[in-house]
């Protein structure tokens, strides 16, 4: 039961965090200059976007849920089952970022979910 709650937090909070960060990064535009000073300036600009901080808060929550889960289960179990974030990510990218997800990509997400189920069943 506790594992299921942590899994939900890892997937839901983690995906929400990534979507927020992705939304923030899209407003900054593509990086062309990789010199340290330019990267530092880029990080400074990123830090001034509200969505970035909301994303970081979500990701922090997901991180501590991951740590709690890792204290109970093996890493070769915990990390693969977090692939459930694919389904959450595809849904979130469609709704929140207005990205178009093709049928082929949805099929891939479905296969990933079957794999996650097999890993979950491998626990016992």
């Amino acid at each position, binding site marked *: 039961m506790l594992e299921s709650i942590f899994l939900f937090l890892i997937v839901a909070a983690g995906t929400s965090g990534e979507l927020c960060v992705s939304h923030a990064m899209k407003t900054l*535009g593509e990086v062309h200059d990789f010199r340290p000073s330019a990267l530092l300036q880029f990080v400074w600009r990123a830090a001034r976007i509200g969505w970035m901080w909301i994303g970081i808060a979500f990701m922090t929550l997901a991180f501590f849920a991951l740590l709690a889960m890792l204290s109970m289960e*093996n890493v070769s179990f915990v990390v693969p089952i977090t692939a459930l974030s694919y389904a959450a990510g595809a849904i979130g990218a469609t709704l929140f970022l207005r990205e178009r997800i093709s049928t082929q990509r949805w099929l891939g997400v479905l296969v990933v979910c079957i794999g996650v189920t097999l890993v979950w069943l491998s626990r016992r």
Partner: protein
Amino acid sequence: MKDSPGLHLKTYIFLLFIVLFAPLGNVLLGKGMKTIGSARDWDPQGLFHILLRILTSGYIWLGIACLLAFFIAYMLVLTWADYSYVQPASAFSYLVVAVLGLLLLGEKVNLLRWTGIAVICLGVFIVGHTHPRTTEKA
């Protein structure tokens, strides 16, 4: 995303960083948390004790450093490739994490788990053969 070979090469290099740093970070966190112990004890004093041990664990900080490197690579790649492309393409890390768990932590990975991970990678393979950009250029 402009459809040029240079941009694709840059994307693949950054995806390689993502695929290596994320699993290594998770394996180090796993090692650290196994040393610290289970978080099943939920009284405030017990939680504080666990938090203190987390913050003073070398494995945890090394893991965080690897995940930070992963995060920076991830943030940079997201400035030119779409989230719904980057997330699936980075999922080969699930195979790498199982291999590292087996080799570095001595975890037992049974046939069903390998099969599940292989199926996840197959899903990734299907998703990975779609175009990086899913939205129109503004």
